[in-house]
């Protein structure tokens, strides 16, 4: 038996398995996970475009005029400076002015009626909401509606916090666990073992199938959401981005998604072979990857996420909702050099697959224990 023959056998197995990995009903969940960010970005794009068209149709206000609006300006002064707003609403409400405690422990609250008003302006990029109380400006809220930098940051955050840590993680868990453990549960693994192929060839074929499916689905999903992030922005800004770092960013995002599939795939394939309940290692790995940023440098390097994140072109923004105490404990390790990151994951994958090959050679089918 030549190596070429075994490779042909592995490819045949991979082809059969790929059909299952791509088109089975269970794969729907994987597609959903992979495409969800794209749906969100496209939804955001539609929302931005719709708002831009609607507000621009009602007339934009020069940015300088909006910047010149100061706190304590009256509504008339604002109307004079910025002109007619695109939205103008007013209301009356009770406002708490005084609160005091009585001797018996009760509370006395005093209210007064306030005339409220909200005006909204749009300068083509930002929407500015001005809140008045009794005709005087109390609050000025500015929101960037079309901000390419913010959207790129949002993509980096979504990619690293959702896509790598959750979507690819659970997607690979579903795909790769299905390869052996799924066959055990379906009581069909013995058909494969009866085929005239070495078990490690079978393992290679199955891994190849899972890897192809997960890489195509998740890399495709990452690229689609990248495109979804770009499309609503002005063509000049997008063209400048493409001629600059854009193509590199897209490549590295796709590469890190593929590398995550390589790493997580091997781990879950081995877990499906070595353990009857692969949920336990999955939960442990999930917790380990989640607390990755809080661990010492050396321990951070013992995770797939560290190497995969090292390939990401834009560092993920810090979670703004994180409590200050946790933020002080957060100390992400310096990212590994790209070539070392790739080599690191590949080395771990080879090691894990080698262990899995040992396990599959020794495996004895006992469906009754499943």
């Amino acid at each position, binding site marked *: 038996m030549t190596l070429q023959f075994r490779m042909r056998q592995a490819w045949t197995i991979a082809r059969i398995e790929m059909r299952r990995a791509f088109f089975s009903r269970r794969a729907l969940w994987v597609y959903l996970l992979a495409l*969800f960010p794209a749906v969100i970005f496209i939804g955001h794009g539609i929302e931005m475009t719709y708002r831009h068209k609607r507000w621009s149709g009602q007339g934009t206000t020069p940015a300088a005029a909006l910047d010149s609006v100061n706190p304590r300006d009256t509504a008339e002064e604002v109307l004079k400076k910025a002109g007619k707003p695109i939205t103008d609403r007013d209301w009356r409400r009770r406002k708490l002015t005084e609160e005091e405690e009585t001797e018996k422990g009760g509370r006395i609250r005093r209210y007064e009626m306030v005339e409220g008003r909200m005006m909204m302006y749009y300068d083509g990029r930002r929407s500015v909401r001005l809140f008045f109380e009794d005709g005087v400006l109390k609050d000025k809220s500015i*929101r960037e509606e079309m901000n390419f930098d913010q959207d790129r940051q949002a993509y980096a955050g979504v990619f690293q916090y*959702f896509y790598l840590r959750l979507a690819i993680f659970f997607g690979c868990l579903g795909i790769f666990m299905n390869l052996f453990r799924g066959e055990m549960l379906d009581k069909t693994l013995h058909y494969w073992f009866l085929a005239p192929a070495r078990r490690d060839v079978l393992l290679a074929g199955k891994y190849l199938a899972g890897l192809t499916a997960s890489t195509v689905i998740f890399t495709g999903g990452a690229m689609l959401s990248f495109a979804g992030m770009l499309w609503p922005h002005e063509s000049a800004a997008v063209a400048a981005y493409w001629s600059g770092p854009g193509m590199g960013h897209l490549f590295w995002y796709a590469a890190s998604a593929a590398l995550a599939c390589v790493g997580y795939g091997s781990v879950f394939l081995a877990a499906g072979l070595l353990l009857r309940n692969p949920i336990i290692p999955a939960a442990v790995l999930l917790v380990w990857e989640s607390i990755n940023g809080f661990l010492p440098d050396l321990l951070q390097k013992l995770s797939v996420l560290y190497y995969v994140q090292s390939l990401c072109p834009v560092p993920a923004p810090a979670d703004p909702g994180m409590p200050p105490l946790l933020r002080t404990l957060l100390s992400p390790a310096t990212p590994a050099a790209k070539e070392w990151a790739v080599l690191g994951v590949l080395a771990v994958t080879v090691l894990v697959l080698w262990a899995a090959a040992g396990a599959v050679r020794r495996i004895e089918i006992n469906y009754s224990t499943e």
Partner: protein
Amino acid sequence: MAVYKRGYQRYQGPLTGRFARLMAMPRFAWERLLQQRLVVIMLCLSMLWPLLCMGFVYLANHLDLIPGMGGGLEKMVSINAKFFVVFMNIQAIFTVILAAMAGPGLIAPDLANNALPLYFSRPMTRVDYVLARMMVLAGLLSMVTWAPGVVLFTMQSSMAGWGWFTGNWRLGAGLVAGFLLWILVVSLVAMASSAYVKWRIIAGALVLGFFFILAGVAEMVNAVFRVDWGSLLNPSRSMYHIWCRLLGAELPEGPGTWEYASAIAALVVLLLVVLERKLRPVEVIK
């Protein structure tokens, strides 16, 4: 009477009480669960945090034992709503992992082996079946949620005195109510996952994924649309807000309590619909 003349006749003898019938399933299920090494290990691990909290309560009430304790530190180790909310938050993680381990084995095997007709041929309705299965999880999860919480609260009350208890009884009541609501949500998620996918392993992954992925989805919606209503999609975040409200702790920014409560109610209804659709005593095979 000839055999061919014997038709179906319903059992007419005496029945045990409804509660006794309900408890039959949990009784066996608890026994089986506690035979699982991993569940026992997880239960032990989930007791670590309550033990640490007990140490903290003891320390907070015996500050005089530590010489040179400054006012700042004294303020930091006070037992208040924040302390109980943090306690609940950590224990909530253990409940999810425990539910992922114990929950899928409740319904999935019955569905996979077509055992539901056997259950429903006894004096047991679908509601009884769901309640009985939920009691299995509720009992298990109570051991790591409100039970140690009540112990903590009692310990603090006994150390700090009657005055503390009368001023802070709301913490104890909020803790129990908050945990019971969380147990309901987690149990329903575990049971719906177990009913939705017939494989135990996949159902376990689904329970884990449900909470982690929804949290991720919520953050993603917030980040991309630059809103805060996305947090409504995150059941853990919704529960955190409700706990803060129940215990009187500082409320986090974002949607209000009613919005979060409505999101949880919608989730519960959705999960009940899944259970209602999946738990049928008959199956039509096309």
